[in-house]
């Protein structure tokens, strides 16, 4: 279980997270929804160790992550598909995927997982020798998710996988997320603006507003909540 308690993070003087508490049970899909600038990316980056917290704790099982370096956190089993995808532009699709497995030594396991990623996203297999930077936005998103899977994580952090992608592909990607969760038993923390889709596949959800959790509950309950409907689900 990934457990976050009273987490504070700031950029210089500006506080971005003002006491976030949240927990992600093993094998669950939990979603975090919120408007632009609410602090979602900040939270994921802090979990991955890319940002340092001011106070509070992030724990995975018995280990405390706030003092860990990013590579140690990857080694502990947390991988991220970052916002904006951050593909290695000059590396091929295959090399990008291998970068995901950078800390792994089990060659056979890596090959098996590569096959799994390719079976999940056949498009990536077709384009395995193409440079990452020349992929379309949707393909890059698949690559970013595939790359995160290549570290064989226990917990997958996804930062807005639907960003800038056509609705039909968004549906496919969300199906894949469910598949990963079902087939591999992987825990998923999904950050989304597309609240409708996210609450559709998650079991539990949190709503974040300017650095604070303002609402939490079962996904179906949140989806039916009037405030959530008004703020995040539009007229849907």
């Amino acid at each position: 279980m990934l457990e976050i308690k009273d987490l504070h993070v700031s950029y210089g003087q500006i506080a971005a997270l003002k006491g976030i508490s949240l927990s992600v049970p093993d094998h669950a899909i939990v979603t975090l929804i919120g408007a632009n600038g609410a602090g979602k990316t900040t939270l994921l980056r802090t979990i991955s160790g890319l940002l340092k917290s001011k106070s509070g704790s992030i724990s995975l099982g018995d280990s405390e992550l706030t003092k860990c370096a990013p590579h140690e956190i990857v080694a502990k089993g947390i991988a991220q598909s970052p916002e904006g995808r951050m593909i290695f532009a000059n590396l091929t699709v295959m090399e990008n995927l291998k970068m995901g497995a950078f800390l792994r030594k089990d060659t056979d396991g890596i090959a098996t997982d590569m096959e799994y990623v390719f079976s999940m996203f056949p498009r990536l297999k077709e384009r395995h020798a193409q440079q990452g930077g020349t992929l379309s936005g949707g393909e890059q998103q698949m690559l970013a998710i595939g790359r995160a899977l290549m570290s064989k994580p226990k917990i997958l952090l996804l930062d807005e996988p639907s960003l800038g992608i056509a609705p039909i592909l968004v549906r496919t990607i969300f199906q894949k997320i469910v598949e990963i969760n079902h087939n591999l038993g992987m825990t998923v923390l999904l950050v989304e603006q597309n609240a409708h889709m996210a609450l559709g596949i998650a079991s539990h959800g949190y709503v974040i507003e300017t650095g604070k959790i303002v609402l939490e509950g079962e996904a179906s309950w949140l989806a039916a909540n009037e405030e959530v409907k008004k703020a995040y689900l539009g007229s849907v």
Partner: protein
Amino acid sequence: MRPQLIFALIFAGLIGLSLVTGKIDPYYYTVIIFIGINITMATSLNLINGFTGQFSLGHAGFMGVGAYVSAIASTFLTTHGLGTEVMGGVPVMAIALLVGGLAAALTGLAVGIPSLRLKGDYLAIVTLGFNEIIRVIIQNVDFKIDGISYVGGARGFAVPQLSSFLWVFGIALVAIYFVENLINSTYGRGFLAVRDDEVAAEAMGVHTTRFKVRAFVIGSFFAGIGGGLFAHFIQYITPDNFTFLKSIEIVVMVILGGMGSTYGVILAAILLTIMPEALREFSEYRMIIYSLMLIVLMIARPQGLFGSETFTRFFAKRKAAANKV
């Protein structure tokens, strides 16, 4: 053909060539030696600037450290029993180059750890400053051991002649082989990842600072050895051999070669060593023509002579293309 085999063949060819270098006109021989040294310099800087994406402007500083330290080592050894007559001077040169390379690598470590937190322009300025500091320090060092003068400050330092065609091109080959192998390994992909996206690299578990420092140390090591080869070839070094202008010259080779293409960088090193020489007949207009040619080349090939193509990938692609037919 496997890369190892290609390198072995080239090395055999070098040994063959080294037998006839005595017949070459001394002027051409000098140009050829400078080509070899510049290949080592450019290939090693390419690891830092091209493959790892860190903009260093201090490569000549590390070259200077290597040149002076290796010259001190060889001068000391030749005057203390390990002269050029012992096995044709091979042991003394080997020790001198190794010591020079290690000294440069240590300097690289000392400069790299604090400064590699800086990015882009800042790193360029810091390394440029370091280059000048090294030069000024050398200018003020002068000491004697057993009555023999070492370093010699601004006056200069006489160095035994120990370089040869085989040393220079053998080392260039080692540098190329080492960097290519490194970059094409699973581990070495970390350098490319740092260049492409530092945050993403970090998120994949690459210890980015450590990788940058490693690139810097390895690059400095070969620059130091390049300096040693240079010192023991021209036999008289002064601090002015290692100004930031020399650093810029090497940076230009890397940029023209395609920032991360070993293949292109080698070609650029050859081209940019020959070009100023070939233009000698234009005397005072030489550097203007040289600069104009650089500008034209950069406009015509903004991605560098070969784009971001590595040796191994170049061959792999040709193989793939051949298999398709």
